[in-house]
């Protein structure tokens, strides 16, 4: 059987092609292109940044010479207090901290530093409870009421440095550190107010005046002393100087007694008073651990009068003749009895500290 195939008319075919094209064009051309209105505007702000600056006064007042003192004749001076004013002179608020640099590291580590907020500070001002403690090598954190300041604000601090004696007292050492109050905001903005000062461990130098004669203890011969030089009484020099031959310092031993060093040209002399028994002259000898070189200072007589006793027994520094250049001896200590007793008069001395 043969199937008849019916052909589409040519005209109809062409119309179909045209219609398909039309649909294609419609499909392609009907994609919407949308253009919306826009409007623009801008706004500017002028910005000026702050600056940081700090000033301070009073830091340099931490300069001090620590002195061990001598119970009775002179008080110890093992602390110093300065009132320090810190001002934020910039235009940004700042957080404060302390920093130190320079100086002798060992000395710096031996000096305690405490800081609190206060005014009119003195060495007798009580340190507030809870005050942080640092050293000149590692300063403490500032207290919460003093560790920040608004722009333009000022605050007053009490700064106290101290050493302990006699163990921590090196004697003769010194340091010149720089202490800074550092103000900071952000990671990189800092300003500091700094001051350098010198602290040293000094000595109390004394003139010892013989009460009976009014003359002064003196290293016989003056100049650079030598072992064996006698201690005599001699007309007092005026003014006295710390390193003169009528100047003496008392260095405390761990047992509480003192060795007595003459000034005599150097604070580092290694000769000390030594006695060799009752009735013998007191002379200079090379320092040693001998008890015969150790003395104590004891109040004796009127207020402000003392006698110097040997640690080894009942021997006292004595000068009975009152003669110029008369030798000073170690003799039995007199009773603290009457003002007319010769022995009593011969063993009394007054101590006057010599400026150094």
């Amino acid at each position: 059987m043969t199937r008849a195939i019916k052909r589409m008319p040519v005209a109809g075919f062409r119309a179909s092609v045209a219609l398909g094209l039309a649909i294609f064009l419609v499909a392609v051309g009907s994609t919407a292109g949308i253009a919306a209105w826009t409007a623009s505007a801008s706004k500017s702000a002028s910005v000026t940044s702050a600056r940081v600056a700090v000033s301070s006064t009073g830091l340099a007042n931490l300069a001090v010479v620590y002195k061990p003192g001598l119970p009775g004749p002179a008080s110890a001076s093992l602390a110093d207090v300065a009132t320090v004013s810190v001002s934020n002179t910039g235009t940004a608020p700042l957080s404060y901290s302390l920093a130190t640099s320079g100086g002798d590291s060992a000395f710096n580590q031996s000096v305690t530093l405490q800081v609190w907020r206060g005014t009119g500070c003195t060495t007798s001002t009580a340190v507030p409870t809870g005050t942080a403690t640092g050293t000149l090598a590692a300063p403490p954190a500032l207290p919460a009421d003093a560790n920040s300041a608004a722009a333009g604000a000022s605050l007053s601090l009490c700064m106290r440095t101290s050493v302990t004696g006699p163990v921590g007292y090196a004697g003769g050492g010194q340091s010149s550190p720089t202490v800074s109050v550092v103000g900071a905001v952000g990671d990189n903005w800092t300003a500091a107010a700094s001051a350098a000062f010198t602290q040293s461990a000094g000595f109390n130098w004394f003139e010892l005046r013989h009460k009976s004669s009014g003359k002064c203890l003196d290293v016989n011969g003056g100049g650079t002393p030598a072992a064996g030089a006698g201690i005599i009484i001699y007309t007092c020099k005026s003014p006295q100087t710390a390193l003169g031959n009528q100047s003496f310092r008392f260095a405390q031993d761990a047992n509480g007694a003192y060795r007595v060093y003459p000034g005599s040209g150097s604070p580092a002399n290694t000769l000390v008073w030594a006695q060799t028994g009752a009735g013998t002259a007191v002379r200079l000898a090379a320092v040693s651990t001998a008890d015969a070189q150790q003395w104590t200072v004891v109040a004796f007589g009127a207020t402000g009068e003392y006698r110097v006793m040997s640690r080894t027994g009942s021997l006292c520094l004595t000068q009975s003749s009152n003669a110029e250049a008369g030798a000073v001896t170690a003799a039995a200590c007199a009773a603290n009895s009457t003002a007319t007793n010769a022995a009593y008069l011969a063993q009394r001395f007054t101590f006057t500290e010599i400026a150094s």
Partner: protein
Amino acid sequence: MSRRTAAHRAQHPRFTLRSLGTSAAALLAAIVLSVSAAGGTYAYLSSAQSVTLTGAGATTATITAGTATLTVGTEAITLAGLYPGETRTTPVAVGNSGTTALALSLDGITGPTSANGLTAAVAPGSCPGTAPGVTAGPLGLALPAGATGTVCLAIGMATSAPAAAQNSSSTVTIALTGTQS
């Protein structure tokens, strides 16, 4: 005419006037459809053109297109003494004085650099902004025609600002765009 010739004509008919007319009509219809369906191209012109109609009942008509105009407040913004870690905010008035609603976006901010340590962002609404500030992009703020609004400009200084950024002056500029919505 031979049978061979007739058969040849049947396989290759000649174009007739009728068939051409049919094709032309289809093509015309396609074009009309294309044009009419291809709507959606909108062009808004802000210019005006008068059109005069002549003849009986002649008159003159003016056709005015809408406008899109974005304004910002004219008040000066001055921030003095900015320091690391600090951020300050200030409101900026914006207005749509055109005739079509606008959606605001922030094109960008100029001025902050690593050298001056400044930072800046813009948030919609009064300060403090109710939304996190952006440094570019849509602000989520639509202004109807004739309406005003506020955006919050926040300018800060990074804690890492260099020391050299102290005591210096900078200008921070925000560029806003309103898009017909």
